[in-house]
């Protein structure tokens, strides 16, 4: 087994601290190659340090909790807002429809007056 193959294996499986879990050709190569032994030590250390990061927490600012709790507020609290929005929406449509109908009436009455004048 060549150093490149062993190093590739070590990068894929850096968490095998005990030699017993290593394949026989890797174990055999490591027993005679100081470069690969050093490489293995580096990977094991890297793996240990990465694992240790699991216990390190990164604290967010205080606003995050409030924001998250606001996001998941129960529907009972949210419904009135939706309901009032819906009322405003329906009201807007009704107002637009009324304005449209009034406009149409004015137009029709003007046209009919024009018709009477032409006929006269």
């Amino acid at each position: 087994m060549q150093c490149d193959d062993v190093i590739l294996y070590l990068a894929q499986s850096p968490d095998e601290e005990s030699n017993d879990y290593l394949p026989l050709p890797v174990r055999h190569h490591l027993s005679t190659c100081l470069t690969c032994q050093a490489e293995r030590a580096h990977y094991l250390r890297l793996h240990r340090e990465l694992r240790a990061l699991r216990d390190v927490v990164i604290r967010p600012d205080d606003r995050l909790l409030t924001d998250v709790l606001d996001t998941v507020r129960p529907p009972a609290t949210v419904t009135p807002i939706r309901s009032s929005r819906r009322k405003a929406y329906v009201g807007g449509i009704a107002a637009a429809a009324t304005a449209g109908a009034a406009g149409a009436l004015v137009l029709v009455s003007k046209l009919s007056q024009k018709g009477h004048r032409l006929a006269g």
Partner: protein
Amino acid sequence: MSKEIDSLVAKAKDGDHRAFEELVRETYVDTYTLAFRLTGDPEDARDVVQEVYLRVHKSLRRFRGDSQFKTWLHRITANCASTLLGRRTKHRHDPMPEDAPIADHNPELDPAARADTGVLRNQLTEALRGLPPKLSAVVVLRDIYDFSHEAIAAELGISESAAKVRLHRARKRLREILHTQQDSEEAEANAV
């Protein structure tokens, strides 16, 4: 802690909103930590956390308890972060904010070892942030959070073999970065 969380999950599944809020309080820092490690940006991490709890709120009833709640939460976080990163056209290399508080939960270590560990940990954190997000995500999920290759593939939307290749590349890059830094520090120390 796990029993407390299990109890809160059970109550929240039954519609107890206070229990759900308590569940958020108990877990949001951990969720933020993972989100920050995956996105590398405090604002993105905040967005991810909000999306995570929205999803949890909607789908908690479907949580069967086959895995631990935190594992489920981590998978949702990984998925949300992956979705967010997928929308990014390019990776941001903003420097880590100086005031980002990092708490160490290993007080039993002696001061000298803590100093060494602290230096290496900072180097590792920086090295992780220097990796492209595709590579850092797999190494964070596998080597820090112990996700299986299958889970990584599922949450990042890639094949298992792609996850393995990325993991190998990420570890190799980290090892190179750290080794180079350590060598230059040793050279500096020898020169003094």
